[in-house]
Protein backbone atom coordinates (compact mmCIF):
# COMPACT_ATOMS: atom_id res chain seq x y z
CA UNK A 1 0.00 0.00 0.00
CA UNK A 2 1.87 2.98 -1.27
CA UNK A 3 -0.68 5.29 0.36
CA UNK A 4 0.78 4.27 3.69
CA UNK A 5 3.92 6.20 2.89
CA UNK A 6 2.12 9.47 2.40
CA UNK A 7 2.30 11.83 5.33
CA UNK A 8 -0.69 12.94 7.37
CA UNK A 9 -0.99 16.71 7.68
CA UNK A 10 -3.40 18.67 9.88
CA UNK A 11 -5.07 21.60 8.16
CA UNK A 12 -5.82 24.99 9.75
CA UNK A 13 -7.77 27.70 7.96
CA UNK A 14 -8.24 31.40 8.60
CA UNK A 15 -11.69 32.03 7.25
CA UNK A 16 -11.52 35.81 7.34
CA UNK A 17 -8.87 38.40 7.99
CA UNK A 18 -8.77 39.19 11.66
CA UNK A 19 -9.72 35.68 12.78
CA UNK A 20 -7.54 32.90 14.14
CA UNK A 21 -6.64 29.86 12.08
CA UNK A 22 -8.94 27.02 12.99
CA UNK A 23 -8.39 23.30 12.69
CA UNK A 24 -10.63 21.81 9.97
CA UNK A 25 -9.30 18.30 9.31
CA UNK A 26 -6.42 16.57 7.62
CA UNK A 27 -4.97 15.60 4.23
CA UNK A 28 -2.45 13.08 3.00
CA UNK A 29 0.42 14.38 0.90
CA UNK A 30 4.06 13.73 0.11
CA UNK A 31 5.38 17.01 1.44
CA UNK A 32 4.18 20.27 2.90
CA UNK A 33 3.94 22.09 -0.46
CA UNK A 34 1.66 19.43 -1.82
CA UNK A 35 -0.28 19.33 1.43
CA UNK A 36 -0.95 23.05 1.10
CA UNK A 37 -2.29 22.60 -2.42
CA UNK A 38 -4.53 19.75 -1.40
CA UNK A 39 -5.74 21.62 1.66
CA UNK A 40 -6.82 24.38 -0.69
CA UNK A 41 -8.56 21.93 -3.02
CA UNK A 42 -10.23 19.89 -0.31
CA UNK A 43 -11.14 22.41 2.37
CA UNK A 44 -11.80 25.68 0.53
CA UNK A 45 -14.14 24.59 -2.26
CA UNK A 46 -16.52 27.38 -1.27
CA UNK A 47 -13.93 30.09 -0.61
CA UNK A 48 -13.87 29.27 3.09
CA UNK A 49 -10.40 30.59 3.64
CA UNK A 50 -7.95 33.41 3.10
CA UNK A 51 -4.99 31.63 4.64
CA UNK A 52 -4.05 28.01 5.22
CA UNK A 53 -1.57 26.31 7.53
CA UNK A 54 -0.56 22.70 7.24
CA UNK A 55 1.41 20.91 9.95
CA UNK A 56 2.63 17.34 9.98
CA UNK A 57 0.39 15.52 12.45
CA UNK A 58 3.42 13.89 14.05
CA UNK A 59 4.93 17.30 14.76
CA UNK A 60 2.10 18.29 17.03
CA UNK A 61 2.73 17.79 20.69
CA UNK A 62 -0.56 17.52 22.49
CA UNK A 63 -1.56 17.60 26.10
CA UNK A 64 -3.38 14.52 27.33
CA UNK A 65 -6.88 15.82 27.79
CA UNK A 66 -7.68 13.32 30.51
CA UNK A 67 -4.80 14.85 32.45
CA UNK A 68 -6.66 18.09 32.42
CA UNK A 69 -7.08 18.09 36.18
CA UNK A 70 -3.40 18.72 36.76
CA UNK A 71 -2.99 20.72 33.58
CA UNK A 72 -5.79 23.21 33.87
CA UNK A 73 -7.25 23.02 37.35
CA UNK A 74 -4.56 25.09 39.07
CA UNK A 75 -5.75 28.20 37.29
CA UNK A 76 -9.34 27.53 38.29
CA UNK A 77 -8.55 28.97 41.70
CA UNK A 78 -7.74 32.37 40.25
CA UNK A 79 -11.17 33.79 39.52
CA UNK A 80 -9.66 37.25 39.84
CA UNK A 81 -8.06 36.69 36.40
CA UNK A 82 -11.48 36.98 34.81
CA UNK A 83 -13.17 40.28 34.06
CA UNK A 84 -16.50 39.19 35.54
CA UNK A 85 -14.83 38.90 38.96
CA UNK A 86 -14.97 42.66 39.39
CA UNK A 87 -18.35 44.16 40.12
CA UNK A 88 -18.52 47.76 39.02
CA UNK A 89 -21.35 50.26 39.24
CA UNK A 90 -23.74 50.21 36.27
CA UNK A 91 -22.67 53.65 35.08
CA UNK A 92 -19.11 52.55 34.39
CA UNK A 93 -19.69 48.81 33.82
CA UNK A 94 -19.04 49.13 30.11
CA UNK A 95 -15.34 48.74 30.81
Amino acid at each position, binding site marked *: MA*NESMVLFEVFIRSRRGLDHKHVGSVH*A*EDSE*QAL*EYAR*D*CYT*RRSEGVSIWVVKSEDITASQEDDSESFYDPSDDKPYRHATYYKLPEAVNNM
Partner: protein
Amino acid sequence: MSVVLNNTAILEYTLRLADDSLILGHRLTEWTSHGPFLEEDIAMSNVALDYIGRARMYYGYAAELSGDGKTEDDFAFLRDEREFRNLLINELPRGDFAYSTVRQLFIDVFNSLYLPKLMQSNDETLAAIAAKGIKETRYHLRRSRDWTLRLGDGTAESHKRMQKAIDSLWGYTHELFELDELEQQLADQRVGVDNTALRAEWLATVESILSEATLTRPNDDWVVKGGRTGYHTENLGHLLTEMQFLHRSNPSCEW
Protein backbone atom coordinates in the same frame (compact mmCIF):
# COMPACT_ATOMS: atom_id res chain seq x y z
CA MET B 1 -15.07 46.93 -41.88
CA SER B 2 -18.65 46.95 -40.70
CA VAL B 3 -19.47 46.27 -37.07
CA VAL B 4 -21.63 43.30 -38.00
CA LEU B 5 -18.85 41.57 -39.86
CA ASN B 6 -16.49 42.07 -36.99
CA ASN B 7 -19.07 40.61 -34.62
CA THR B 8 -19.18 37.49 -36.76
CA ALA B 9 -15.43 37.19 -36.56
CA ILE B 10 -15.39 37.66 -32.81
CA LEU B 11 -18.21 35.15 -32.47
CA GLU B 12 -16.22 32.59 -34.44
CA TYR B 13 -13.10 33.30 -32.39
CA THR B 14 -15.01 33.06 -29.11
CA LEU B 15 -16.51 29.74 -30.11
CA ARG B 16 -13.06 28.34 -30.78
CA LEU B 17 -11.93 29.28 -27.30
CA ALA B 18 -15.16 27.91 -25.85
CA ASP B 19 -14.72 24.59 -27.63
CA ASP B 20 -11.13 24.29 -26.34
CA SER B 21 -12.31 24.78 -22.76
CA LEU B 22 -15.34 22.54 -22.95
CA ILE B 23 -13.63 19.60 -24.61
CA LEU B 24 -10.69 19.69 -22.21
CA GLY B 25 -13.03 20.16 -19.24
CA HIS B 26 -15.04 17.19 -20.39
CA ARG B 27 -11.93 15.03 -20.63
CA LEU B 28 -10.92 16.10 -17.12
CA THR B 29 -14.30 15.10 -15.68
CA GLU B 30 -13.53 11.60 -16.87
CA TRP B 31 -11.01 11.43 -14.03
CA THR B 32 -13.58 11.91 -11.29
CA SER B 33 -13.58 8.80 -9.04
CA HIS B 34 -10.63 7.42 -11.07
CA GLY B 35 -7.87 9.53 -9.50
CA PRO B 36 -4.73 7.94 -8.00
CA PHE B 37 -5.79 8.96 -4.49
CA LEU B 38 -8.57 10.93 -2.90
CA GLU B 39 -6.93 14.34 -2.57
CA GLU B 40 -5.82 14.30 -6.19
CA ASP B 41 -9.28 13.25 -7.33
CA ILE B 42 -10.71 16.34 -5.66
CA ALA B 43 -7.98 18.56 -7.12
CA MET B 44 -8.59 17.32 -10.67
CA SER B 45 -12.30 17.99 -10.35
CA ASN B 46 -11.41 21.57 -9.45
CA VAL B 47 -9.45 21.98 -12.65
CA ALA B 48 -12.30 20.40 -14.64
CA LEU B 49 -14.76 22.81 -13.01
CA ASP B 50 -12.56 25.76 -13.95
CA TYR B 51 -12.57 24.70 -17.60
CA ILE B 52 -16.30 24.05 -17.74
CA GLY B 53 -16.87 27.42 -16.11
CA ARG B 54 -14.59 29.09 -18.64
CA ALA B 55 -16.41 27.35 -21.50
CA ARG B 56 -19.72 28.64 -20.20
CA MET B 57 -18.43 32.21 -20.13
CA TYR B 58 -17.19 31.97 -23.69
CA TYR B 59 -20.38 30.28 -24.95
CA GLY B 60 -22.46 32.80 -23.06
CA TYR B 61 -20.64 35.58 -24.86
CA ALA B 62 -21.01 33.78 -28.18
CA ALA B 63 -24.76 33.55 -27.55
CA GLU B 64 -24.85 37.26 -26.90
CA LEU B 65 -22.91 38.02 -30.08
CA SER B 66 -25.03 35.74 -32.23
CA GLY B 67 -28.09 37.77 -31.19
CA ASP B 68 -30.53 35.19 -32.52
CA GLY B 69 -31.71 33.69 -29.24
CA LYS B 70 -29.10 30.92 -29.19
CA THR B 71 -28.00 29.71 -25.77
CA GLU B 72 -24.74 28.29 -24.45
CA ASP B 73 -26.28 24.83 -24.69
CA ASP B 74 -27.21 25.25 -28.35
CA PHE B 75 -23.53 25.73 -29.12
CA ALA B 76 -22.34 22.91 -26.87
CA PHE B 77 -24.96 20.29 -27.62
CA LEU B 78 -26.34 20.95 -31.08
CA ARG B 79 -23.24 21.33 -33.22
CA ASP B 80 -21.67 18.37 -34.99
CA GLU B 81 -18.14 17.14 -35.07
CA ARG B 82 -17.27 19.08 -38.22
CA GLU B 83 -18.52 22.29 -36.62
CA PHE B 84 -16.42 22.03 -33.46
CA ARG B 85 -13.28 24.16 -33.64
CA ASN B 86 -11.24 23.02 -30.66
CA LEU B 87 -7.54 22.30 -31.05
CA LEU B 88 -6.89 18.59 -31.39
CA ILE B 89 -4.84 18.23 -28.21
CA ASN B 90 -7.95 18.85 -26.12
CA GLU B 91 -9.98 16.00 -27.57
CA LEU B 92 -7.44 13.18 -27.19
CA PRO B 93 -8.56 10.53 -24.69
CA ARG B 94 -7.69 11.04 -21.03
CA GLY B 95 -5.04 8.31 -21.16
CA ASP B 96 -3.10 7.45 -18.02
CA PHE B 97 -2.18 9.95 -15.33
CA ALA B 98 1.10 10.75 -17.09
CA TYR B 99 -0.68 11.53 -20.34
CA SER B 100 -3.16 13.85 -18.63
CA THR B 101 -0.34 15.52 -16.69
CA VAL B 102 1.69 16.23 -19.81
CA ARG B 103 -1.32 17.52 -21.73
CA GLN B 104 -2.13 19.85 -18.83
CA LEU B 105 1.47 21.03 -18.68
CA PHE B 106 1.55 21.91 -22.38
CA ILE B 107 -1.81 23.67 -22.23
CA ASP B 108 -1.18 25.38 -18.89
CA VAL B 109 2.10 26.86 -20.05
CA PHE B 110 0.36 27.98 -23.23
CA ASN B 111 -2.51 29.59 -21.33
CA SER B 112 -0.12 31.26 -18.91
CA LEU B 113 1.26 33.12 -21.93
CA TYR B 114 -1.92 33.46 -23.96
CA LEU B 115 -4.37 34.75 -21.34
CA PRO B 116 -2.29 37.76 -20.22
CA LYS B 117 -2.28 38.84 -23.88
CA LEU B 118 -6.02 38.26 -24.23
CA MET B 119 -6.49 40.39 -21.12
CA GLN B 120 -5.31 43.30 -23.24
CA SER B 121 -7.94 42.63 -25.90
CA ASN B 122 -9.97 45.57 -27.18
CA ASP B 123 -12.95 43.35 -26.58
CA GLU B 124 -13.88 43.94 -22.98
CA THR B 125 -15.69 40.66 -22.47
CA LEU B 126 -12.85 38.54 -23.78
CA ALA B 127 -10.44 40.56 -21.67
CA ALA B 128 -12.58 39.96 -18.57
CA ILE B 129 -12.84 36.24 -19.18
CA ALA B 130 -9.07 36.10 -19.62
CA ALA B 131 -8.56 38.01 -16.38
CA LYS B 132 -10.55 35.43 -14.48
CA GLY B 133 -8.93 32.58 -16.37
CA ILE B 134 -5.35 33.57 -15.70
CA LYS B 135 -5.84 33.23 -11.95
CA GLU B 136 -7.02 29.67 -12.44
CA THR B 137 -4.28 28.92 -14.93
CA ARG B 138 -1.49 30.02 -12.60
CA TYR B 139 -2.75 27.47 -10.12
CA HIS B 140 -3.17 24.79 -12.80
CA LEU B 141 0.38 25.34 -13.96
CA ARG B 142 1.74 25.03 -10.45
CA ARG B 143 0.08 21.66 -10.29
CA SER B 144 1.13 20.36 -13.69
CA ARG B 145 4.70 21.59 -13.26
CA ASP B 146 4.89 19.97 -9.85
CA TRP B 147 3.51 16.67 -11.14
CA THR B 148 5.86 16.71 -14.11
CA LEU B 149 8.81 16.95 -11.72
CA ARG B 150 7.51 14.27 -9.38
CA LEU B 151 6.69 11.81 -12.14
CA GLY B 152 9.57 12.61 -14.46
CA ASP B 153 12.11 12.23 -11.68
CA GLY B 154 10.20 9.59 -9.71
CA THR B 155 10.57 5.90 -10.56
CA ALA B 156 11.81 4.30 -13.79
CA GLU B 157 8.19 3.38 -14.49
CA SER B 158 6.85 6.90 -14.03
CA HIS B 159 9.72 8.35 -16.06
CA LYS B 160 8.96 5.98 -18.91
CA ARG B 161 5.27 6.83 -18.88
CA MET B 162 5.98 10.55 -18.87
CA GLN B 163 8.43 10.37 -21.74
CA LYS B 164 5.96 8.28 -23.73
CA ALA B 165 3.20 10.83 -23.09
CA ILE B 166 5.46 13.68 -24.19
CA ASP B 167 6.36 11.84 -27.37
CA SER B 168 2.69 11.11 -28.16
CA LEU B 169 1.51 14.64 -27.48
CA TRP B 170 4.29 16.77 -28.90
CA GLY B 171 2.97 16.57 -32.47
CA TYR B 172 -0.28 18.19 -31.36
CA THR B 173 1.36 21.23 -29.77
CA HIS B 174 2.27 22.92 -33.05
CA GLU B 175 -1.23 24.07 -33.85
CA LEU B 176 -1.35 25.99 -30.57
CA PHE B 177 0.86 28.54 -32.32
CA GLU B 178 -0.86 28.78 -35.70
CA LEU B 179 -2.97 31.66 -36.94
CA ASP B 180 -5.49 31.41 -39.74
CA GLU B 181 -6.76 34.43 -41.63
CA LEU B 182 -9.50 35.22 -39.15
CA GLU B 183 -7.22 34.96 -36.15
CA GLN B 184 -4.60 37.08 -37.91
CA GLN B 185 -7.18 39.72 -38.64
CA LEU B 186 -8.38 39.78 -35.04
CA ALA B 187 -4.81 39.89 -33.76
CA ASP B 188 -4.15 42.89 -36.02
CA GLN B 189 -7.21 44.60 -34.57
CA ARG B 190 -5.95 43.82 -31.09
CA VAL B 191 -9.06 41.78 -30.37
CA GLY B 192 -7.34 38.42 -30.58
CA VAL B 193 -3.81 37.31 -29.79
CA ASP B 194 -0.86 36.63 -32.07
CA ASN B 195 -0.21 33.05 -30.98
CA THR B 196 2.83 32.68 -33.22
CA ALA B 197 4.66 35.13 -31.00
CA LEU B 198 4.14 32.90 -27.95
CA ARG B 199 6.02 29.84 -29.15
CA ALA B 200 9.55 30.85 -28.24
CA GLU B 201 8.68 31.51 -24.63
CA TRP B 202 6.46 28.43 -24.48
CA LEU B 203 9.35 26.28 -25.72
CA ALA B 204 11.80 27.81 -23.29
CA THR B 205 9.48 27.25 -20.32
CA VAL B 206 8.48 23.73 -21.30
CA GLU B 207 12.07 22.73 -22.07
CA SER B 208 13.29 23.99 -18.74
CA ILE B 209 10.59 22.10 -16.84
CA LEU B 210 11.20 18.94 -18.84
CA SER B 211 14.91 19.10 -18.31
CA GLU B 212 14.49 19.64 -14.57
CA ALA B 213 12.24 16.58 -14.60
CA THR B 214 14.99 14.60 -16.46
CA LEU B 215 12.71 14.35 -19.51
CA THR B 216 13.53 15.03 -23.14
CA ARG B 217 11.90 17.29 -25.65
CA PRO B 218 11.15 15.40 -28.89
CA ASN B 219 12.10 16.81 -32.28
CA ASP B 220 9.59 18.64 -34.44
CA ASP B 221 9.31 16.33 -37.43
CA TRP B 222 5.83 15.07 -36.51
CA VAL B 223 3.10 17.71 -36.80
CA VAL B 224 -0.69 17.20 -36.68
CA LYS B 225 -3.13 20.04 -37.37
CA GLY B 226 -6.76 20.62 -38.19
CA GLY B 227 -8.80 21.55 -35.10
CA ARG B 228 -9.57 25.10 -36.18
CA THR B 229 -11.00 23.90 -39.50
CA GLY B 230 -13.06 21.11 -37.97
CA TYR B 231 -10.70 18.41 -39.20
CA HIS B 232 -10.66 16.30 -36.04
CA THR B 233 -9.27 13.01 -34.81
CA GLU B 234 -11.74 10.15 -34.46
CA ASN B 235 -11.89 10.74 -30.71
CA LEU B 236 -14.06 13.84 -30.89
CA GLY B 237 -17.04 12.09 -32.50
CA HIS B 238 -17.28 9.61 -29.67
CA LEU B 239 -16.92 12.31 -27.06
CA LEU B 240 -19.73 14.34 -28.64
CA THR B 241 -21.96 11.30 -29.06
CA GLU B 242 -21.78 10.70 -25.34
CA MET B 243 -21.95 14.32 -24.29
CA GLN B 244 -24.81 15.36 -26.56
CA PHE B 245 -27.13 12.36 -26.71
CA LEU B 246 -29.45 13.25 -23.87
CA HIS B 247 -29.79 16.90 -24.78
CA ARG B 248 -30.50 15.93 -28.37
CA SER B 249 -33.05 13.28 -27.40
CA ASN B 250 -35.39 16.19 -26.88
CA PRO B 251 -33.70 19.50 -27.59
CA SER B 252 -36.80 21.58 -26.93
CA CYS B 253 -36.92 20.42 -23.29
CA GLU B 254 -35.68 22.19 -20.20
CA TRP B 255 -33.46 20.00 -18.08
